């Protein structure tokens, strides 16, 4: 199971829960599992096969460059964050 922190703007879908555990070996699978448990999640964080514009996901504190295709381990911690760039 992966641990997903639910951003404040999505807690209406999770009944106010800010942290949930769902199965998945990739970010895409975790999003799918979230959507099954809390319908509507996928529409907010994803755009087809991609993450939604401006949305990044971190796995264990590291921004997942592969996005939905990034691997997820048992016990991994996922967060949805705004995209960041460096100059």
């Amino acid at each position, binding site marked *: 199971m992966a641990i997903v922190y639910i951003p404040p703007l*999505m807690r209406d879908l999770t009944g106010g829960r800010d942290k949930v555990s769902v199965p998945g070996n990739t970010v895409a699978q975790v999003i799918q599992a979230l959507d099954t448990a809390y319908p509507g999640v996928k*529409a*907010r*964080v994803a755009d087809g096969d991609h993450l939604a514009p*401006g949305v990044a996901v971190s796995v264990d*504190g590291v921004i997942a460059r592969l996005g939905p295709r990034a691997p997820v381990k048992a016990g991994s911690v996922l967060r949805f964050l*705004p995209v960041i*760039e*460096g*100059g």
Partner: protein
Amino acid sequence: MNAQEQKPFAVVGERLPRYDGADKVTGKAIFGPDVALPGMCYGFILRSPHAHARILSSDTSRAEALPGVYAVVTAADLPPAESADHRYARDNTFASDKVLYVGHAVAAVAARTPAIAEQAARLIAVEYDVLPAVTDVLAAMRDDAPILHDDMRTHSLAGHGDKPSNVASHFQHLKGDPARGFAEADVIVEREFHTATVHQGYIESHATVATWSDDGAPSNGALTIYTTTQGSFSVRDHVVWLLDLPMSNVRVVPTEVGGAFGGKNTSYLDVPAALLARKARRPVKITMPRPDVFLATGPSSGAVFRVKMGATRDGRITAAQAELYYAAGAYPGSPVGSGANVMFGPYVIPNGQIDGYDVVTNGPRVSSYRAPGGTPANFAAETLIDELAEKLGLDPLEFRLRNHAREGDERLDGGTHGHIGGIEVLQAAQTCAHYTAPLTGPNRGRGVAHTAWGNWGGRSSCALNVNGDGTVNLVTSSVDLSGTRTTIAMQAAEALQLPPERIKPSVGDTDNTGYADVSAGSRTTYATGIAAIQAAEDVIAQMRARAAALWDVPVESVAYARGVFASGADLRFTFAELAEQVTGSGGSVGSIANVDVAEWGAGFSTHIADVEVDPETGKVTLLRYTVVQDVGQAVNPAMVEGQMQGGATQGIGWALYEGYAYNEKGQMLNANFLDYKIPTALDVPLIETVIVEVPYPQHPYGVRGVGEPPIVPPPGAIANAIYRAAGIRPDHLPMTPAHLLEKLGVIES
């Protein structure tokens, strides 16, 4: 620890001259605009005179008929878009249905001379239906604002908007209970801030030369691009994405770069030059005129902030709240995310909320600028921090210390602080020569500001090849913006235990090096340095194995120290002797290390500014300026000081001078270096530097990123100094004389 007795490094920490220094002072260094190929012709890009207009028709026939013209290209020459992001990138290369800013590229011409190319471009007849334009971020959010993208709906994790909007996205960070936090506060301060769009202002314009090999098996037409960029692979990725080519067939050769600061993370000319070169069947060079650099590249976001902070009487912050509105320019992607991270970044905020909005406006699509989004956010937050300290009767550095984050503290974005040196920076500022010196005289004041900036790691590659004479060639794919060849080679020399003159570093191209991310995010000396150290360690391991084989001893018995391989009492090779042996038989030794450095940590910087404000003219004179910064471990202190001074000066420009001026039609009024004023030698004092070294545990030598943090605090430090000098709190950037005179009540707004 006594540094004299226990100097940990032989090379790292020394003030070595730069490997590229001689070429830079003799004019031999080849920058982007210096590249010329045999048979080359010249490109010119036709740009929109309107900030917002529908393209009704476009006729290129007169341009094509002009003698000396070899090719004309438009959006029709680009493969179709496959996603929203792809369409934005495609449309920003050449407008298809609408132009969204003055300077938006519409078509390009290649011709025998630059003059013919420009003349031909002017013969392209484009018919526009001019639409109302909006350049101000708040105006762009109004219900009656002209809509840039009919299909854009606000994206938010709370759900998508249901009608067209210029707000591309909204995000929120939330921690604790802000309402409760403000209820616990004894003092609450609240302000709104407006900051202008600014440009990176590199002195070298953009320039690209593109050339194709003619089609022929097995590689079906290969493209080579020479360009000034922060990332050769990023240019390759962009060109491959927009022209649908195999990665292997696009070779990008980076030139020397004449300043970039994030503005050369983005590719502007490469696709137009490639399209022209393919059609013209000869190399094409495009150099961007300076006005176009202002109109069509960079800049950084203009922004609006609404910020509120509360603290208890004993000086503890109880709550903080901020709304950030960033203008993205024509397409989404402002640095509002990193602005939010900078906002209250250094401090423990028990109850906090940040809302960020990415808003499209009729300006060039913003690009990164040194600590993207951080500088204006810090101005807003550090003004309120100063105001809280003042209302609580606390020294401003002491107030920051009482609330400073430590390792393990949770950030507002949900992450956790790693090993950071922010407290050490504030303490060094408290005791430095500047802060402890008295400031006297009328209309004078001293201000401070402090920031955190999350430097980046990312992908880097470094190759080492050992030559038969014991010298070593080092090749990285990280473009060298201001001396990273030297700082990377110094780390390799340290790891190889060789004098730096035995290492010869260079920057490779995309055909002959491993992948690297852009040289940006203060990551190059840090992450590419790690690659260099790994490659060096592998070289030594290989050399030990080769020595063991030559001596017929177990490899574990071969030791390496200070340039000498030894086994037992008798067996001994210097690095050069062994290099001669191994290249003479059995094949030479080399290694390439490809890394993806995930770990990164925040750098901290505190700035101290003394100013004098002329109450009659509103002119601000900087009397003294000091930058204090944690750099982990300075690889080359002279270059570290240069980063601190240069970053601070850019921040000073942002604070006092720089800003895009638009008229009501959305046309930029100051697209030149006369009217867009960047600091000159007369505008800044000598800038004092205090290097703090709290070694960063994720780098073998403790190195941290250096380049970005120093641009962040200047507006806050100067604003707070102005308050102490003149009793007014500026809330606009730039803090022009007119703004200060309004605040002083001398003139009306």
